């Protein structure tokens, strides 16, 4: 492989050695893992951090006076500091640990939504949204007799800022938009949308699940009022995610779930609530997963998100040009600004059959509706096949995908 001087390529072979799973075989072939948009793999450093936590540091947090509880609390809160720094949040109290993106959005929909939405109000989303940034709003809008307004996309999967902005009206109370589409890879002009929404005093929630590994997120510079993501999309464990919220919003919001840790004093007649961030962290949290997420963020920062993004872009360009040469492949979602996600169909072959044949060759892709059924309907397909790349994938793996698709075509078209 030739490395040009100006190319921002990473030492991929060294990086791959950090990921034990990338060394395994699947169906007798070396694993080619191209389902990173669903879940990214964990490097050894994160796995070891989880083992160390469970082996030597585990106890419940915020409760005991004993040494282990203090160490566990220290590790958990250090992870919060790492997240704060990763997002460049102003304050650590603005970082709430949740089970993931889905729970973070449900928290905002239930707490902020139930407090602020009245009959006739509108929540504005887009056609790109994952069910996680659609269904919670649909539920709360139904409950509050509010209206869900959906900004349309272009046929190539682009979301134009003006198509969102012109739908912000006197009844709009919140804009909730994805940063990068999980199904198509479209990068949304989120900054422009936030500026326009703020000009009318409307807060914006950004679904960053697909963005955090692929673009540098600075919530202060971006101006997002809420920013949410999941740990497992950026090489951390499952069961942990983050709700970032500006303090002014979080302070004004009532708790969502009640229980331990979120209280200050409890009597049978009344409860006073804890301060941020604990007000929104009822019950024992996923302590180990939070600690693992912190380690994953440090690992990524050591490599550098900008370098990751630049390298992924070379993979995207290479894979897109290879797939575009296959006459039996149709790319779905060709927005000018994209992350390394390629949705496609093999003509006349159901995506599940594409996925099964590729799997026989050790190639893992996603086939289905990508938890975005309304988007699939908009694009006129029941489902797509999706290959999603990240910094440990190689140019050779792009070529392995092409060989796999050739086999699909020979089987079904031959």
């Amino acid at each position, binding site marked *: 492989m030739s490395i040009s001087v100006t190319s921002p390529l990473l030492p991929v072979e060294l990086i791959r050695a950090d990921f034990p799973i990338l060394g395994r075989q699947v169906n007798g*072939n070396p694993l080619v893992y191209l389902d990173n948009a669903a879940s990214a793999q964990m490097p050894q450093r994160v796995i070891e951090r989880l083992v160390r936590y469970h082996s030597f540091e585990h106890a419940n947090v915020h409760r005991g006076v004993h040494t282990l509880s203090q160490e566990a609390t220290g590790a958990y809160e250090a992870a919060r500091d790492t997240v704060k720094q990763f997002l460049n949040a102003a304050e650590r109290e603005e970082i709430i640990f949740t089970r993931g993106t889905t729970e973070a959005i449900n928290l905002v929909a239930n707490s902020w939504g139930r407090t602020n939405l009245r009959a006739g109000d509108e929540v504005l989303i887009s056609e790109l949204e994952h069910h996680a940034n659609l269904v919670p709003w649909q539920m709360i809008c139904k409950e509050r007799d509010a209206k869900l307004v959906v900004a349309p996309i272009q046929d190539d999967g682009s979301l134009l800022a003006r198509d969102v902005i012109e739908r912000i009206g006197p009844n709009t109370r919140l804009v909730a938009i994805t940063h990068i589409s999980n199904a198509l890879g479209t990068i949304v002009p989120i900054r422009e949308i936030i500026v326009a929404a703020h000009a009318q005093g409307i807060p914006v929630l950004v679904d960053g699940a697909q963005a955090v590994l692929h673009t540098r997120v600075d919530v202060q510079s971006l101006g997002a009022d809420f920013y949410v993501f999941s740990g497992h999309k950026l090489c951390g464990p499952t069961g942990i995610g983050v709700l970032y919220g500006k303090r002014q919003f979080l302070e004004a919001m009532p708790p969502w779930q009640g229980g331990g840790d979120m209280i200050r004093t409890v009597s049978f007649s009344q409860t006073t609530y804890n301060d941020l961030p604990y007000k929104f962290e009822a019950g024992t949290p996923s302590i180990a997963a939070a600690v693992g997420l912190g380690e994953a963020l440090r690992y990524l920062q050591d490599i550098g998100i900008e370098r990751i993004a630049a390298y992924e872009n070379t993979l995207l360009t290479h894979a897109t040009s290879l797939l575009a040469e296959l006459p039996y492949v149709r790319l779905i979602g060709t927005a000018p600004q994209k992350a390394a996600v390629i949705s496609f169909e093999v003509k006349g072959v*159901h995506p599940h059959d594409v996925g*099964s044949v590729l799997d026989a*060759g050790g190639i893992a892709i996603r086939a*289905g*509706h990508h938890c975005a059924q309304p988007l699939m309907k908009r694009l006129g397909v*029941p489902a797509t096949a999706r290959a999603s790349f990240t910094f440990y994938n190689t140019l050779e793996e792009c070529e392995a995908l092409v060989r796999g698709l050739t086999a699909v075509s020979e089987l079904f078209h031959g």
Partner: protein
Amino acid sequence: MTSPNALYNQLILEHNKKPRNYGKVADATHHSEGLNPLCGDHIWLTARLSQDAIDEIRFEGQSCAICQASASIMTTQVKGKSIESVKTLVQDFRQVVTGQTDSISSENNGNRYLQAFSGIANLPARVKCAVLPWHTLQAALSGEASSSTEGSGDPVPGSGSPAP
């Protein structure tokens, strides 16, 4: 690469490419719509019964190769059969796709059209694709207008489902 032929064998590929009994039975006495909401497989089954036997059966729909081949092969296997035999076939098909080939009836033991689907047993996420037409046939015979692979009528509870 490992051959995908264990799953996509010649019989399945051929029935996918040229499905038999595709279309609608005009004077159907029984019909049902089958849907797998997780992957979008969607078929419509129409049949004409007389004297406790299936005289005519056809299917239409949009689905993956496994589902389409399964529907096509099913129609060829149940046409002209008594309801009693059809019920045994449905049961035996389920045994094959869930890897319990030892339990199939002597009547259908060695039926290569059923055996063609034995590779599915290793792929739990695809079992429902294969079962959907048979599940829909059962619904049609019971007078149910629709059936789904999800919910209380799940034909293969606990088998794999596509992740979000």
